[in-house]
């Protein structure tokens, strides 16, 4: 009953329009205030402080900063041009380029919205110039931006790691295969749609253009190498890798490509902070809310209710995934992670699901949520850039959502899809 009341109060507060962070904090404060236990409220600032100042979480602003610097510093355009040279000749041309460019971009930034709002603008403009249908262009731009948080580096993985203590390096590696599968699923969807609509294609590969555009983008494409080699070589922590990627993007943008100046930096830093602080304030408030959950033994009650309902792990997993997908329709992805990881993580360990595999499932569910109405951050970002209604964009997204759900099912059904690479390189 307590569990139900706490969760119902939280959902009601969010639904009436209170900021998510305040809803989390107020639910916990209200619970203790109604019980007359005001002494516990002294923990509100303590929990808020300790929840937000962990060193791992400091990776979040720097992976966003790297993405913003690439968007304003000319790196994004170079990546797009190289992707165009590589797969622009396949049927569906720029749709395929869109997916490949997002895969390259996701190796440097960890935020879907940075991809949708930055690279998305380049992609949409190029597709409009070539006469592509605006709904087709906007839908593939939105869908492909969700590869970012699954393929390393990834902000949601950093967050999941800070809540559960699972290694960030393992989680980053676990996202590689599902990220590539997402790209392949989206490219296959584009190919099918392009065939059905009889879209034109370029007849041959221009090897000279591939070489030329590769030379132009080579320095940019080194960014994921710096991040991955730095983390897995034990040279830097994930947070420091974010700093190194930002520093590298800054050097390229200011001194090599000369597309930004010192005057542009305050604007870029503020844009980075907007994304960061929205997330961090939710984490701060969730610090006290999470404490309430544990104090009231909510996760334990949830474990026994779910296991009481069915002892079949498949059924329990199906229920958890269904809840995550439904929550994702109404809440921002980060809020879903902060809210549900403390609840479902004990359930998953109880039924024997690998914590790394559950991390990937969790993040993929929240990515689907980014694309679904009524609350989908990427949906809103792309609909505003493409000047297309959310309804039309949602409809055009359906085939790509189907592709992403197939990959999600593969990650759920076959643990090796996510766990094989981290186990191979880092051991069990």
């Amino acid at each position, binding site marked *: 009953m307590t569990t139900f009341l706490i969760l119902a109060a939280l959902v009601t507060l969010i639904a009436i329009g209170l900021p*998510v*962070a305040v809803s989390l904090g*107020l639910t916990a404060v209200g619970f203790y205030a109604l019980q007359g236990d005001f002494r516990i*409220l002294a923990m509100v*600032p303590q929990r808020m402080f300790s929840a937000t100042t962990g060193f791992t979480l400091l990776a979040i602003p*720097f992976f966003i900063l790297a993405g913003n610097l690439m968007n304003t510093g000319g790196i994004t355009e170079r990546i797009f041009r190289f992707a165009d040279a590589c797969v622009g000749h396949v049927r569906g041309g720029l749709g395929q380029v869109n997916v490949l460019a997002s895969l390259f971009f996701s190796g440097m930034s960890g935020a879907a919205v940075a991809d949708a709002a930055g690279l998305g603008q380049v992609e949409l403009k190029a597709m409009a110039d070539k006469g592509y249908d605006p709904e087709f262009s906007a839908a593939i731009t939105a869908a492909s931006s969700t590869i970012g948080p699954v393929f390393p580096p990834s902000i949601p993985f950093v967050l999941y790691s800070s809540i559960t203590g699972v290694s960030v390096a393992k989680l980053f590696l676990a996202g590689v295969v599902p990220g590539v599968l997402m790209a392949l699923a989206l490219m296959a969807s584009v190919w099918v749609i392009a065939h059905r609509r009889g879209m034109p294609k370029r007849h041959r590969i221009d090897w000279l253009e591939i070489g030329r555009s590769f030379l132009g983008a080579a320095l940019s494409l080194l960014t994921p190498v710096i991040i991955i080699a730095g983390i897995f070589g034990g040279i*830097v922590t994930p947070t*420091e890798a974010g700093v190194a990627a*930002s520093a590298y993007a800054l050097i390229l943008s200011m001194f090599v490509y000369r597309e930004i100046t010192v005057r542009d930096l305050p604007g870029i830093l503020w844009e980075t902070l907007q994304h960061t602080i929205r997330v961090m304030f939710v984490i701060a408030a969730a610090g006290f809310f999470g404490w309430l959950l544990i104090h009231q033994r909510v996760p334990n009650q949830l474990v026994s209710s779910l296991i009481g309902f069915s002892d079949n792990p498949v059924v329990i997993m199906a229920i958890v995934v269904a809840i995550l997908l439904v929550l994702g329709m109404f809440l921002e992805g980060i809020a879903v992670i902060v809210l549900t990881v403390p609840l479902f993580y004990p359930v998953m360990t109880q039924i024997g699901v690998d914590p790394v595999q559950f991390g990937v499932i969790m993040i993929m569910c929240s990515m689907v949520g980014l694309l679904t109405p009524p609350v989908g951050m990427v949906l809103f970002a792309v609909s505003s850039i493409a000047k297309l209604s959310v309804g039309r964009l949602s409809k055009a997204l359906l085939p790509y959502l189907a592709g992403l759900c197939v990959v999600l099912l593969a990650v759920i059904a076959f643990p090796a899809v996510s766990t094989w690479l981290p186990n191979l390189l880092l051991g069990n």
Partner: protein
Amino acid sequence: MLATIDRIAGFILRAIPVCCLAALFLLLLTNVIARTFQLAGFSWFDEIVQGLFAWMVFIGAAALWRERDHFQVDWLERSLPAIPARILRLVTTLLAICFLVVMTAYGADLTRSAKALTPILGLPTALFYITIPLSGAVMLIYSSAELLRLLTGFNSSRETQQ
């Protein structure tokens, strides 16, 4: 007059987290370079990073509060006619104020009672904690102004400008 104060407050609220982020970037970068090339070790590094991070997050939260830019689900308010939407806004503002009062009051208590010094630099930990009541107080001021506006129908200068 109020509009000028609001503009200055908005500038300061943005400038503090921007400076913190820039400082964190330089500090972390210097630390990586110094460690990689075995130039020096900064034992005080963690203390400063934690302090800057706290100031960046909590003052930044106040800046976003002023700009109504935190994550929220506003489809219910948008789907209601004007008067029920206004009543709903009144309720959510009051609820937000309840939380902000707790955050500010207990944050101030924590700051007052924190007598510890950081182990290496000897900085008072209160210097880090004070950012919570400070941020809460700024958000309270903006929410109270919003409440007043909703109750009196008075359009604040900022809204008029928008």
